[in-house]
Structures are given as C-alpha cells and as structure tokens.
C-alpha cells in the first residue's frame, strides 16, 4: 500500500499532537493528581441520612488531615443539602457527596468540580479553592421534572475583607 509523502507528514504531525496531549494529561493526572472523580466508596443509598458523614451535611473544619475543610453534600430530587456553602479562600477542601434517590449531577459553574452522583456511590473531589467568588452549584444530570430548580451556592470568601 502506498502512502503519499505528505500523508506521512500529516499522520506524524497529527498523531504526534495526540501523543503530546496524552503525555500532558497522563503526567498531570498520575503525577499531579488531577484525576476526575475516582472514588470507589459505596453506601446504602436508602440509609444515607443515618450514615456518617451524611447524617450531618454541611461545611466542617477538620484537623490533622491533608485538607482543611470537608464539605458534605446530599442530593435528592430536587434539592441539595446544604443550600449554601461558605469557605475561606485558599482552603484545601474535600467535597463529599451522594444521592438519596436517582442520579444527580454536581457541577460547580466556573470550576473543575464536576461529579456524577449515583445511588450507592459516594463521589469525591479534593481541591484548593483559590479564588473569591460566588459559584452556582447546578444539577447537571437530568433527574426529573424539577431538575432545573435544583441548585446550591458555593461562596468562597476572603475572611480579611470586612466590606460586607
């Protein structure tokens, strides 16, 4: 089979580009730790309210861990608990979330926090919230009639700013 010389150049250039993408992604993920949701934690989704930490949803300051805050979120049709999350800027946060019924999404607009919440599984993401702002948390997986009414808010605040 003959391949035109320019086609060889093109395949080397195109294939090489894809290879570079893969290397950048791979190093950033497996060395830099930027994996998407990789939790394997399972739970009885019918008893979420009785099982720690979901028996106490909200923002919790923690000591002696690799992160400063744990944010525990529970999703159900068609609301999140809690409705508002406030965290000081620069904190390292572990988001922990699950659902009590169908599949929901947890997308925090303007951030890389984007998790599928599936019944029976706990989804997790650890990140440092390094920019002040108000971020809308939306359910981004169809869950029923009230899907578009399902939201919450993440407020990343500067504790030294007394203007409010």
């Amino acid at each position: 089979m003959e391949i035109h010389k320019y086609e060889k150049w093109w395949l080397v250039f195109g294939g090489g580009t894809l290879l570079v993408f893969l290397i950048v992604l791979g190093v950033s993920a497996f060395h830099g730790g930027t994996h998407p949701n990789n939790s394997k934690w399972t739970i009885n989704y019918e008893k979420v309210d009785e099982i720690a930490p979901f028996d106490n949803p909200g923002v919790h300051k923690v000591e002696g861990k690799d992160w400063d805050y744990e944010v525990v979120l529970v999703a159900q049709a068609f609301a999140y608990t809690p409705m508002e999350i406030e965290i000081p800027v620069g904190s390292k946060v572990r988001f922990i979330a699950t659902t009590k019924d169908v599949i929901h999404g947890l997308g925090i607009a303007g951030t890389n926090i984007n998790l599928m919440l599936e019944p029976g599984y706990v989804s997790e993401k650890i990140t440092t919230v390094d920019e002040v702002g108000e971020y809308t948390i939306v359910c981004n997986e169809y869950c029923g009639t009230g899907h578009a009414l399902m939201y919450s808010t993440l407020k990343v605040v500067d504790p030294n700013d007394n203007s409010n």
Partner: protein
Amino acid sequence: MTKQKKSSDDNLKGTLFATFGVGLVIIIVWVYCFDLFIGRF
C-alpha cells in the same frame, strides 16, 4: 509501474497545508481548554 510513481508525485501541497490547518484547529481548541482547566480550581 510508472503510473504508480506518478501518483506519489502528485502535487498535494494544498492538501498538506489544509490538513496542517486542521491540526492547528485541534491544537488551539485543546490548549485553550487545557489553559482554562489549569486556571480553575
């Protein structure tokens, strides 16, 4: 035999540029998104 050689010598400069243009689009879109990703938490 001579015919085969001829087709390898076809003038495909435009094709070369066009495909590299496609490659450029791929790179620009990807790098832009990667940069956004890096900039967000």
